[in-house]
C-alpha cells in the first residue's frame, strides 16, 4: 500500500474517560479506523464542539479538501488517501460490511441514543453531568440540553412516532431490537478475533465505536449493558481492541476511575480551570457584596474637602469647650 506523504490531517474529537479514547460513538469509530488503517493523524481531544473546524465533532481538517464531519465521509477520505483497512476484503465481505453497518445504524444506534440521552435517570446522572462538567463555561449550560433535544427529535423522526416520550413502551421496543442486533453480531463474530479474520476492518471500527461506550460507561439504568455483558465474545472483542490499539488511553483510565484515593491527582489535572474558577467566583461574590453595601448605604465613603476636614477637626474642640463651660458654671 503506497502511502501518500503529506501533512498529517488533524482530527478533532470529544475527549475520553474511564479508559475510553473518546465518549462519543462517532469519534470512537473514526479513531479506531485511523488506528486500524495506520493513518497518521494529529488528534485533538477537546470538549468544545464550537472549536472544531466544522462546528461538530468528530471533524477532520485536511490540508487539501477542507473539513469533513460525518464518520462515513471521514473514512472515505482516509481511504482515498490510501489508508484503507478494507484492502484485503473480498467482494462479498465488502458487501457484508455495508449490510452490517446498516444493521447497526437501524437497530442498535437508536437504542444507544435512547439509553444515553433520553432515559431520564441515565441522562441526568451520567450524560448531562459529564458534558456539563467538561464543556467550558458558558456553553455547558446550553449545549447538553440542545444535544438532548436533538437526540429526542432524531429518535422521534426515525421511528415515525411523534409521541415518543421516555417511558416503558418505547424503551422496550428499542431495546428489543438492540438485543437482537447484539445477538446477531455476536453470532456473526463467533470465535474470530475480528469480523473478517485476523485483521480489523471498517466494520470493526463501527461495531467498536458503538459497543465500547456501552461497555465502559457505568449507566444506572441499563438493561442494554447487561445484555451486552452476557455476550462474552463481544466484551472480549472490545477489550481486545482497547488493549491493542488504545494502550496509552487505557493507562490513563485507572487514574480517573478512582477519584477518592487520587483526588489530589484529579484536582491537579483540572487545576488551571478549577483555581481560576474558584478565584473568579470569590471575586464575583466579593464584588457583589461590596456593591450591595454601597448601594444600600450601609457603607458610604464621603468625599471630604481639605476645608471641611479642618472644620471637622475643630468641631469636637468647640463641643469640648462648651462642656467645660457648662461644668465651670
Amino acid at each position, binding site marked *: 500500500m503506497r502511502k501518500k506523504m503529506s501533512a498529517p490531517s488533524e482530527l478533532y474529537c470529544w475527549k475520553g474517560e474511564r479508559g475510553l479514547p473518546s465518549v462519543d460513538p462517532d469519534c470512537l469509530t473514526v479513531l479506531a479506523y485511523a488506528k486500524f488503517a495506520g493513518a497518521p493523524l494529529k488528534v485533538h481531544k477537546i470538549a468544545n464542539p464550537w472549536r472544531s473546524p466544522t462546528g461538530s465533532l468528530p471533524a477532520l481538517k485536511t490540508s487539501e479538501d477542507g473539513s469533513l464531519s460525518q464518520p462515513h465521509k471521514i473514512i472515505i477520505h482516509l481511504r482515498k488517501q490510501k489508508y484503507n483497512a478494507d484492502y484485503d476484503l473480498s467482494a462479498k465481505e465488502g458487501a457484508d460490511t455495508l449490510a452490517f453497518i446498516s*444493521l447497526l445504524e437501524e437497530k442498535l444506534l437508536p437504542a444507544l441514543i435512547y439509553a444515553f440521552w433520553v432515559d431520564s435517570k441515565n441522562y441526568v446522572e451520567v450524560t448531562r453531568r459529564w458534558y456539563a462538567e467538561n464543556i467550558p463555561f458558558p456553553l455547558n449550560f446550553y449545549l447538553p440540553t440542545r444535544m438532548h433535544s436533538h437526540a429526542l427529535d432524531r429518535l422521534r423522526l426515525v421511528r415515525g412516532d411523534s409521541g415518543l416520550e421516555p417511558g416503558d413502551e418505547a424503551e422496550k421496543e428499542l431495546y428489543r431490537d438492540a438485543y437482537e442486533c447484539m445477538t446477531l453480531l455476536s453470532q456473526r463474530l463467533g470465535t474470530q478475533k475480528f469480523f473478517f479474520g485476523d485483521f480489523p476492518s471498517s466494520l470493526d471500527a463501527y461495531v467498536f465505536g458503538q459497543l465500547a461506550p456501552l461497555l465502559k460507561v457505568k449507566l444506572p439504568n441499563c438493561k442494554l449493558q447487561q445484555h451486552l455483558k452476557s455476550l462474552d465474545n463481544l466484551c472480549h472483542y472490545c477489550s481486545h481492541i482497547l488493549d491493542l490499539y488504545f494502550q496509552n488511553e487505557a493507562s490513563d483510565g485507572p487514574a480517573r476511575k478512582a477519584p477518592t484515593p487520587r483526588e489530589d491527582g484529579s484536582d491537579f489535572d483540572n487545576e488551571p480551570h478549577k483555581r481560576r474558577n474558584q478565584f473568579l467566583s470569590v471575586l464575583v461574590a466579593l464584588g457583589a457584596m461590596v456593591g450591595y453595601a454601597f448601594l444600600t448605604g450601609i457603607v458610604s465613603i464621603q468625599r471630604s474637602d481639605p476645608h471641611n476636614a479642618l472644620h471637622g477637626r475643630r468641631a469636637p474642640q468647640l463641643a469640648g469647650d462648651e462642656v467645660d463651660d457648662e461644668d465651670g458654671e
Partner: protein
Amino acid sequence: MSLAAEAFVSQIAAAEPWPENAALYQPLKDDQILLSDHASSLAVQAYLRMCNLPVQVACRANAEYMSPSGKVPFIHIGNQVVSELGPIVQFIKAKGHSLSDGLGEVQKAEMKAYMELVNNMLLTAELYIQWCDENTAKEITRPRFSSPYTWPLNHVLAYQKQWEVRRKMKAIGWAGKTLDQVYEDVSQCCQALSQRLGTQPYFFNKQPTELDALVFGHLFTILTTQLTSDELGEKVKNYSNLLSFCRRIEQNYFEDHDKDSITSSTSHLSKGSSLM
C-alpha cells in the same frame, strides 16, 4: 406494540388459520401510489405469494391513515391489522408459515443485515429522490400524493408530508447529500446485493426468503417506474444478475397467478410494461 400485547396477538394469531378474505391495503394504484410505497407493497405481496397465502389487494385513498403505524402496506386478517414487512413476517411466522426457518444462525444474521441495508439505503434513497429533489417532487410526487383530495387540502397535505420527510432526512444526515451522491449510494447498495447474490437463484440458494421478497419489491419498482430521469433504473440495470433475479421471481410467483395485478400497477407508473 408492547411485548405483552405482542405475545397476546401472536397467541391469537397462532390459533386461527389463514382466512380466505385476507386483504392488503395500499394507496390507489393508478394515480396516488408513490415509488417507495409501491416498493414496500410489492415486497409484502411477493412474500405472501412465496408463502402461498392468498390475499386480495385493496386500494384506498386513505390507506396511510388507516394503517396502525402510518406506513403502508398493511394487511387485514380476521380482526387484526398488521403493517410493514417486518411485523407481517413475524405475524405470519406465528401462524406457522416461515421461509427462513431452514437458515443457520449466521445466515439469519446476514439476512437481517441485508434487509436493513435495503431499508437504510434503497428506501431512504427512494424517499430522498421523491421528496427532496425539487424537480421530481414538483412534477410527480406532490401531484400524485394529493390527487384524491380537493383544493386546498391537496396542497396542505402534500407540503406537510414533504416537510416531514425533509426533516427526517436532516435528522439522519442525508439532507446534505446531492442527488449524485444519492445515486452513488444506490449503486453501492446494488453492488453489495449483486455480490451477495452471485450466481445463485436466490440469496440463500435454493429457497426464497423475506430478503428476496424485499429486494424484488424495491428493484422491480425502480426498474419499471418512470421518473423525471432514468438514472435510478440505469444504476440497477448495471447488474445483470439482479435483473435476472427480478425476472425469475416475476415469472415464478406473479405470472402464473393473475398477470393483471402486477403489470397494470406498473403500466400507469411507467411507459413500458414488464421487464420483458
